[in-house]
């Protein structure tokens, strides 16, 4: 399992860079059958620049079905989870 603590990534990176990092990890892990967990503790904002560079780019390349059972979140604000669900609906 690959786990990313998003707050740590955002300390030294802006949203597009952090999204790019998440994409790289997803691309490395998910096609090999591993799961990716995004720890969202302390994250209060998920703008489109982050989502486009991470999940959006992955879905564009591999399709939304490839995420099923392979992507999970922990310690996430309910509003951010709704935002991600809404985002996935719009891009798929």
């Amino acid at each position, binding site marked *: 399992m690959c786990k990313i603590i998003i707050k740590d990534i955002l300390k030294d990176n802006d949203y597009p860079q952090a999204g*790019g990092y998440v994409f790289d990890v997803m691309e490395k892990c998910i096609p090999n059958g591993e799961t990716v967990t995004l720890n969202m503790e302390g994250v209060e*904002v998920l703008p489109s620049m982050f989502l*486009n560079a991470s999940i959006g780019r992955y879905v564009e390349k591999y399709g939304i079905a490839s995420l099923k059972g392979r992507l*999970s979140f922990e310690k996430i604000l*309910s509003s951010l989870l709704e*935002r991600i669900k809404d*985002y996935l609906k*719009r891009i798929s």
Partner: protein
Amino acid sequence: MPVHLVTLAYLIDALKKEGARVYIDKNTIGSFIYDNLHFKDYFSENSPTFTTAEDERILGLWRVNESEKDVHPKRVQDYLKRVFFHNKDLSAVGGSVTEAYYNIFDHSRSTNNAWSMMKYDESNERLSVAVCDCGIGIPESIRQSIPNLTDSDALLQALEYKFTTQSKSYNGGMGLGNIKDACTAEDYLRIFSGWGILLANRDKIKVVQTPFYFQGTLLYYDLSLSHFEEEEVLEGFDFL
């Protein structure tokens, strides 16, 4: 009020760059602007990018700059939580201002004449946000992908969820659309840019061609925060 003050800051900065000397009459509302909002500090050498307003209802004027584009939204949320809310989930506010600031750096090619300010009115629980820049404007940016659009139609296009000018690789659209999504039916979003105005809330969008030209983009919106809920953190969620 924030919309007027960011526009005033934009005008003063533009005039000073042309070599004009600008005076504020302190006998009128100028005293509030000059002293309370610290306008006197922003237009000199080594000027600060942000000062705290004396009036607690106002988050002071911020000279928008790229190195603080992720810092200021955090400042906004901290201010609202510290002064008015303690455990409310304000992610929609932080998200909307982040989208507005990135929009300046990704599309406008603005020089450093860009400003933001916000005010929270406790009596009606409404937050007013204003952002202004002197860049190429949204219509011009959109026409780099779709030539021949009028300014008002270009503003409409900018809110399309999947539309992007691809000015940056991470621009997949949805930025300005997310600001609109933060609005309820009672809230509003206004964007002035070039010869167009866009007026929107959650359910409606209208564009109008204007008889005057605005160099850059003036974006402001007014949100009711009364319906914002307490923060709820979910321990785990799997996509099934």
